[in-house]
């Protein structure tokens, strides 16, 4: 009996955590892509906003009727922002931290400004859940756990598998890692450090933009100011937690997502504790995702320091360091 309750609670938590942090998953994959070639893009928060607002504009103002096309438009907009970022930090070698923060601020500001007349307008062009129907439809929890829209499968299964395969099983991936670890060596064997860095940071920005698009085309589904609500920063934290390994990002994103769904579930059901009323508990729970994320970042570093054997979880050695042939 108690086991069944725990099982139900766990399933419902994870089941709603999956869509809640698909955005984080997409943004973390995008950030990881850039960081693997040595480009730290702190602007994820802004890119989510840009991807989201342009998808909203595509649907509401340009009459786009396919969620895929709307998402593509959001991705292109984020890629353009990512290209400006990449030109500043890769071509001109400006500080990645400063320009990244600038992109975060600028992206939040720009997207909020563009969305100002579209607050709360419901989006009708949505991704549809894939549900074979009839097989398991009498069990709500199992279907909540298994059946989502296609983007969720891409974010949690498709992208990590592809990225893992490319990074660790192909020559191309080895070159990518070389650009992030030792750009001078990559340059010496004829890999264009500048070109690869620009290409993958733009591609990463597009993925993060897809995350923003997913928020408005499935999760919320409406525009509201500050749509990312810290998810971009959480995504950057998830990359650290995952030790720059695509598969582990799934665990990080789900950890964050289950904290979010704990909060929303508690609010919806008016949960309280003997020493804490329902409203106080909900304030407390809304801090929890960020606290848990913070603790999660400390885990890999702490494990290394405390002498546990952990397979390489260190950041790419050349992360956030501009490459210049003159200075190698």
């Amino acid at each position, binding site marked *: 009996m108690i086991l069944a309750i725990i099982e139900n609670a766990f399933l419902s938590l994870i089941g709603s955590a999956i869509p809640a942090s698909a955005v984080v998953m997409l943004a973390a994959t995008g950030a990881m892509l850039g960081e693997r070639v040595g480009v730290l893009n702190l602007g994820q928060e802004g890119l989510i906003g840009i991807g989201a607002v342009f998808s909203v504009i595509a649907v509401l103002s340009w009459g786009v009727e396919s969620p895929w096309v709307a998402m593509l438009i959001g991705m292109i907009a984020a890629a353009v922002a990512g290209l400006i970022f990449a030109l500043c930090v890769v071509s001109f070698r*400006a500080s990645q931290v400063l320009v990244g923060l600038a*992109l975060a*601020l600028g992206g939040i500001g720009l997207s909020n400004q563009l969305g100002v007349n579209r607050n709360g307008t419901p989006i009708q062009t949505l991704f549809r859940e894939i549900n074979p129907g009839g097989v398991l439809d009498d069990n709500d929890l199992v279907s909540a756990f298994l059946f989502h829209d296609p983007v969720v499968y891409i974010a949690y299964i498709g992208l990590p598998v592809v990225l893992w395969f490319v990074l660790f099983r192909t020559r191309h991936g080895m070159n990518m890692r070389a650009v992030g670890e030792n750009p001078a060596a990559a340059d010496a064997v004829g890999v264009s450090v*500048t*070109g690869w860095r620009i290409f993958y940071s733009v591609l990463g920005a597009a993925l993060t933009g897809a995350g923003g698009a997913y928020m408005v085309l499935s999760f919320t589904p409406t525009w509201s100011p500050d749509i990312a609500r810290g998810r971009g920063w959480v995504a950057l934290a998830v990359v*650290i937690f995952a030790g720059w390994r695509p598969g582990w990002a799934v665990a990080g994103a789900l950890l964050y997502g289950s904290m979010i769904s704990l909060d929303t579930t508690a609010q919806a059901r008016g949960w309280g504790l003997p020493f804490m009323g329902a409203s106080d508990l909900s304030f407390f729970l809304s801090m929890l995702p960020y606290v848990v994320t913070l603790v999660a970042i400390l885990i890999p*570093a702490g494990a290394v320091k405390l002498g546990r054997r952990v397979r390489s979880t260190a950041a790419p050695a050349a992360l956030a360091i501009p490459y210049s*042939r003159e200075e190698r």
Partner: protein
Amino acid sequence: MTPLGSIASTVLRVTPWRLERRLEVEARRAALTRIGGAVGAMVLVGIVLLLTGRNAFWIFWQGLDAIFGRQRGIEGAALRAIPILMTALGVALSLRMKVWNIGSDGQFLMGALAAVGVGIHMDGPAWLVLIVMAAAATLAGAAWILVPALARAYWDVNEIITTLLLNFVALQLVTWSALGFWRDKEAAVIQSTREVAHTLPGLPGANSVTIALLVPLVIAAALWWVFRSTTIGYEIDTIGGNPRAAGYAGIAVRRRILIVMLFTGAIAGLGGMLQLSAPGAQAMNAGFSAQFGLSGFIVAALAGASFWGVIGGGLFIASMFYAGIVLQTKGLSVYIIFAIYGVILTGIALGEIAARYRVVRREAVDGDGAQAGDDHDAATERAAT
């Protein structure tokens, strides 16, 4: 190989000019190019606003006129300068050792929250309450950065994300206090904490500015002295230059990082108390920090690591901020300020890099020199792309 790189170097090649890397970058030149980048960015923003039918230059001029035309305007800008200067000083101190404290907004909020807690619960003479409030705020600010500082110093965990995540926690905590545990139950409409009864004494001749304005000036002077004349200041600069070399020189690098980060939090936290003790701002709500940490960060980025530069830049950004309020009344949303900050910060970052290069005229070189000169050209062009 890269199309963009080759386009850029082709563009450079057809002009008679080329970029040359400077061997040494003077601090003064870097400061000038940063300011140039920021001003250029603002002009760009102005042009964009002009294209959307808003004469930003005229509105901005009106804003500045509103500030410097009247005493109330000057005091309005000064009031906003206090929290911006405090958070900027904290960030600038951490930048001396190349540590990024992005969480000054959170430390500022926690400082103010601790000050409210003391202020509404403590009985006693006003001076004593205010001193305890300041002490509590300083400690709270330092405590709020303790975990990121320990993680950075001893576990080498990147401080950018950890400090930033705590901003969200601090904001939730403040919201909780304003709507929950310290809520002012008499005020039905405005959701904020109860009000602290005491304020700092006013500056002579001022209507609303208190002696709080002197605090950032004193701290800037103290920091300037520490870095000019003391061993610890020198050690911090050494760590900022090259942590490994500093370690070989016998400096306790990790402990210095921890201490400096705690100080940056403490300064931002004290800023929260100073803001709270201004007349009319004695209670907290979710909007208590109008992105002061953000403005402070931009000031510190603009000033590099010069503490007097922070004072100058802080007064400038505070004036901008105040002029921006005038902008808001002209049909621009508050969000546009973020976008403008983003453009300015990019301008600063590009200005910083511009100081490292100079444009020189391509010269015809004859004889043996030609080969070497061409190689050098090609190398600088590649570097520029």
